[in-house]
């Protein structure tokens, strides 16, 4: 995935979860689920909603998975898959 998408996701996660300075430390391989205490079901929902609004994509049920939310990189990969070429 591109650096641009990773940067956009870093910004989106920082804003949506209100991570503040901690958000700046997020890298593509940073684990999300099980690692970020903010990541409860409301937060997962907010992130999915923010991805839909920001990138104008549709999130499916299958995307709400441990695999997608494993790392920042896996979320970025999802976004890149869904944006029309």
């Amino acid at each position, binding site marked *: 995935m591109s650096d641009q998408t990773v940067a956009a996701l870093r*910004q989106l996660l*920082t*804003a*949506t979860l*209100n991570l503040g300075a901690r958000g700046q430390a997020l890298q593509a391989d940073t684990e999300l*689920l099980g690692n970020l205490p*903010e*990541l*409860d*079901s*409301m*937060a*997962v*929902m*907010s992130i*999915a*909603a923010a991805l*839909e*609004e*920001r990138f*104008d994509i549709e*999130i499916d*049920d299958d995307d*709400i*998975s*441990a695999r997608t*939310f494993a790392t920042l990189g896996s979320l970025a990969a999802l976004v890149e898959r869904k944006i029309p070429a």
Partner: protein
Amino acid sequence: MNAAQAPQPAAFFLPGRVGPRFCLYHAPAAGHPVRGAFLYIHPFAEEMNCARRTAARQARRLAADGYGVLQIDLGGCGDSHGEFAEATWQGWRDDVLDGAAWLSDHCSPNVNLWGLRMGALLALDCCTRLPRAPEQMLLWQPVINGRRFLNQFLRIALASKLTGEFAQAYTDSAAMRVALIKGDMLEIGGYELSGGLAGGIDAADAALLPAPLGSVQWLEISADGVEPGEAAQRLFGAWRAAGVSLDVHLVTAPPFWATHGHEVSDALLDASVSALLEPA
């Protein structure tokens, strides 16, 4: 008088046509003319609780600036009578109309609407149904499309399979929608969602509603001050083409409706008051 010195709001039950509705009324500050009234329409489910402190501070600010502000708990929500499971979109419309009528009788015939998130969508739904069109609409981070919003709400149940927070019987949103249509009640994030309410939310779409007649102050609130997305931009285009007086304001503040425990953002309160008081 500044907002910190404002008196406590008056709490009472408004005898709504559907049932008693818990209300808090912030009377306009004495000593200058009453500018008008605002009815606050709260957001959906847990967002209402998360946003409570911010809404209360804004209500006091508006009252200090000469507006009478009524905060009404919609049917089945907060301290109002009725169960959330029995709430309906039409019932909520009736609550808004009743709240507006009370303000017209007790404060000023110039009744304006202030809505947050799904409350903003309900405000847009109701503004052309009021006996007198609101001169001003204050919309905080509006939900534009009820179907998309309902999808997001249903996702809380799906997300819970990742976080293990809530016991759930459904594994996909299509199955959940079928269940709702059949008349099943779904428990999501601690709230019992009925098919009736889900249907009403699903059908609500700002793009299909008549354009608001008064001036609209749209506040887009995010931690990084980002512009509204595609769907909002399309709506703005349609409204402007229809002659709506629309001002869009970007406010940098955390999404206080989404989690508990936020500090109240002065930037948001200041932006709202300036937007309303600025000459058109």
